[in-house]
Structure formats: C-alpha cells, structure tokens
C-alpha cells in the first residue's frame, strides 16, 4: 500500500495548487461573457485587410446605445426575419475605423454567425461607400475550413455592396445577381456556406443602419 509521507503543510500547499489547477482548467474552456467579434491580432490584421491605412481607431457600438429593440427588429426584418441567436441588445460590436492621414477612409467590421459545427467569425473591410475591399473568415470549424478561408473564395466578395446582397435572400438561399454566382467551395458544408453569406449580409446591414445611412 502506498502512503503519503509528506508533511501536512506540503499536503495543504499541494491541495491549494490542485484547486487552482482545477479551477484554471475549468476556466481554460471558452468562457467569454459577451459575443463580441474582434480581430485576434488587430495590429497586423487591420494592416492586412486595409493596406493603405496610416492609423486606425477601435470603437464600439451597440443597440442599447442607439435604436434599441426596434432597431434590432428592423435589422432582423432586413435579414429576412431570421432572429439572431444569442444577440442581446447590450453586446458591443467592435468597429475598426481606418484612417489615411487625418481622413477616414473605411471600416473593418466582423460578425458572429451560426455555422455547421460552431461559430463563424466573418470580417469585411469597407470603403466609405460601403463597398467590400477585403473579406476574412477568422474562425470556422470543420475539415473544409481551409476551402472557405482561401484567397480564391474570398475574392468573390470584393467589390460587392449591400445592394448586391439585397437581391439575394439569405434565408431561403435564393436570389439573383452577383451574390448568387458565388460558388460554394465545399459542397458538404452548405450550412457554413450560407452562414458566410448571411454573415456578410448581416455585417453590411448593421454597418448601413449604424453608419452609412446616418451620413448626411
């Protein structure tokens, strides 16, 4: 039989260490409170998504600050009346405002969207007219992830605007125009493909409601 010969003090200290370990392991799993979508490496990611920038500013906006419940409902209606999962009003959306010298030249904004095996984190960079300049999937689960994060797939979104997405219903996944011609890189991942399209549309609608439509 094995016995523990260590002193009571060292046993206690060991116990504390184990408790800390246990709690830290519990905390090692995802435990974020708010479902804010932020770039993992803002400094390098922003420069990559908006190469001509000289500086950028991070700001936050939420439905609580402007519009509240009615605005949330309005946006859901614009997205085909598909209520977003886990979309509390007070969750702040992170916005990267891009500057060239003193002049604001665009935005980078990301949203979370339900995907096949987990959340999709989809970012777009936009010029001041709301045209997509770059497309970036930060997170996608599944063995087909690389097909979606490939440059080839992302290129299909460049130049698109909200007008293009308005001709496409992201709930029934039917429509016409440029969005309808975007090809699914992984036929087995239809949920993720349509999730990405929904995410981009949600992104553009949010930006329109909060920024572009409020401009003089």
């Amino acid at each position, binding site marked *: 039989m094995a016995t523990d010969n260590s002193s009571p003090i060292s046993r206690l200290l060991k*116990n504390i260490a184990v408790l800390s370990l246990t709690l830290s*392991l519990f905390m090692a*799993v995802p435990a974020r409170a708010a479902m804010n979508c932020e770039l993992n490496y803002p400094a390098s990611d922003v420069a990559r998504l908006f190469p001509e920038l000289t500086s950028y500013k991070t700001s936050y906006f939420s439905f609580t600050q402007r519009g509240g419940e009615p605005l949330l409902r309005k946006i859901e209606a614009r997205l085909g009346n598909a209520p977003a999962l886990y979309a509390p009003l007070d969750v702040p959306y992170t916005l990267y405002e891009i500057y060239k010298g003193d002049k604001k030249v665009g935005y980078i904004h990301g949203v979370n969207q339900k995907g096949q095996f987990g959340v999709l984190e989809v970012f777009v960079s936009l010029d001041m007219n709301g045209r997509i300049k770059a497309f970036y999937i930060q997170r996608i689960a599944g063995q087909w992830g690389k097909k979606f994060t490939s440059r080839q797939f992302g290129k299909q979104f460049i130049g698109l605007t909200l007008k293009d997405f308005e001709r496409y219903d992201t709930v029934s996944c039917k429509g016409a125009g440029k969005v309808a011609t975007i090809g699914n890189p992984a036929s087995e991942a239809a949920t993720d493909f349509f999730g990405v399209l929904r995410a981009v549309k949600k992104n553009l609608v949010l930006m329109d409601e909060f920024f572009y439509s409020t401009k003089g």
Partner: protein
Amino acid sequence: MISRFQIAYKNLLRKKARTLLTLVGIMLSAWVLVSLLGFNRGYESALNRDIDNMGYQLMVMAKGCPYEAATMMLQGGTGLRYIEQSMVDSIVNRPEVDKVTPILMQAFFDPDKGDGGGIAGYFGVEAATFPAMKPFFRFRQGGWFHDEQALEAVMGFEAAELEQREVGDPILVPEKNVQLKVVGILERTGTQDDGTIFVPLKTLQKISAIDKITTIGIKVKKDADTTKLETSLYQLPDVQVVSFTQVKQTIMKLVATARVMVLSIAIIALLIAMVGVVNTILMSVLERLQEIGILKTMGAMPSDIFFLVWTETLILCSCGGVAGIGLAFVFARLSDILVRRVLPYAPGGELVAIDLKLALLTLAVIVVVGLLSGIYPAWKAGRVRPLESIRGE
C-alpha cells in the same frame, strides 16, 4: 433660536480649507475601512460558493506535481496522469462516502480558437452520477445524455453562446474530428461550468483512446469525518486527495494574514485621520478662546461648551464617514477588479460585498472613534477660564 448644531456647523465653515482637508482624511479612512470589511465578507462567501458549486468535497487524482499536470493538459492533454476507473468501486462503499463520480478531463488543440489556436476542454462525466453532484444545474434547453456511450454533448451557457449552438446542433471535437450532437444547454450558473462542454465519460474515453479517468469527485455524508476519509484514501496507490474544505480553510488563513496587514494599515489611516480631527478641532478651540470666554461670562456651562465642540467633531466624522462609505459603494466594482489583479487565486462573484449593515457599522466605528478623539479638544474648551481668555486676547 439657533441650535447647537447650527453653531457648530457655522464654526466649521469659518475655516473651509481646513475643514475640507479633515473631511477628506476621514472620508479616505472610511472608504478603506468599509472596503476592507466588505472584502472580508465578500471573499469568504465567494470562496464558499465556488467550492460548494464544485459539488463534491473531496477529489482524488493521480499523484504528481499538479502544476506539471496543468502545463501538460493546457498544452494538449499529452502526458496527463490517469487513475484506474476501478478505483471508484473501492471508494464508493466507504461509510463516509455519500456519492462518487468519475471524471475524465481532456484537452484538444483547436487551431480555429483564439489567437493562433487554443485548447478546447472537454469533461467526460456519467449522466448517472454527475448530475447528483450539481443539483443546482438547470437546463435552458434539452437535458442530459441519452446513454453513457452516446455521441452527445451538454454545453454550459457561455460555451453554447460562444459557439452559437442550440439543442440538436452538431459540434466537432478538434484534433479527433469526432462529431457530437448537442442534447442539452445549461442555464447560466455564474461558475466555471458555464464554459464547459460535458460529454459522456465512455464517449470521451473512446475519442481519446483511453480507458482511465483523471479525477474522482466524492461527496461526503453529512457529519461524516472527512479527515478520516481523506487519510484512508491516501492508502490507495499513487493518488493524492484534495480536500476542498481544508483548502478553503487554508486559503482563508492565508487571506486572513494578508487581511490583518491591510487592516493594520487601515487602522493607521484611521488614526491619522483622527489626529487630523483632533488638530482641526483643537486649532479651532484655540482660535476661539475669547469667544468661548464670552460665552461663559454669558452663563454657558463647561458642559455646554464641551458639547458644542463635540458636535463639531460629530459633524466632521459623520459627513466624512458618509462620503467615504458612498465612495466605497460607487467604486466597489473597481475595488473588486483591483483585488482580483493582486490576488493569485480569486473566486468568482462579488469579492467586495458592501451592504447597508456593513455601511452603518463602519459609520458607527468612524463616529465613535471620532468622538473619542474629540474629547480632549472639547474638554480643553470646557475648561477655558473666561477672564483669562478675554484678557489673553
């Protein structure tokens, strides 16, 4: 007729800067004192809650350096120390034991998570024994696994929120590419369970290609001798026993040591503030000797003068105390954040818990100590001889 309070108030207003500085001193002391007392209460209850929410009082795990195990696990679960599942049978029948649950903790590297990938933690538990350890769990959607070998998962509220999962949705175990179906989503508990993904033990063992477990959680019978059980468990080969009650007591002792030191500083701050009070009131008395003399010639008794000066002390201490307690209430969350930064292990929930009872207690301490400090200047004022003071001026 003008009241004693009005006279005292007007006297204090004569030297506004001095009065304000004294008030600031009392206010800061009150702030520190109430925050410390609030921490004393909040920390203990938060620690109790965290440990109670673990569901079990004892944990049996493989012998070895826990930090080494933590590093291994956080690096991807390789090299973890395991114990035989048969050990559960040797524990469950002991007279002190109420319930036992085997747990397998596994961590897989998820390249899509966080900055450059991260660790996704999975807890393999038995639907038959684990829920009894966590009676406070409530399901937001669904329920526990349908059988002990199902490819199913139950997600904590935040884990589901983060991954945007609902009951019926699939999740993928990173590295292993095994698909699980979400069958339950828990309500928010305010504990680390919110971020946890629970999988049937046998399923996780199959996914990880391992037939062992990492931990046995033990719920001890009410009034059972935990120390005796702990000692007997140490007779099992190559295990270490973690007693949460003992750990809690030890942490509380460590915290108490730190608290005594901080409380000493708070008492010194309080004493300095009170010296300030004595100084302010005494200066005020010495500057008003002639007035006090005239009051006496008009028939004021020494006790009248004493209480007049004492009232000034009361006003100073009450106002400073109320302001300090108000600040403590306003900045309670900030104090919480600061304490969390300083303490290596801080339980979840409110660490600085200030309520009305505590606020009133602190105010009473400040006022009583203040009034004690005010006795000397008030006594000195009461003893002023009218003729001498008038001549002296």
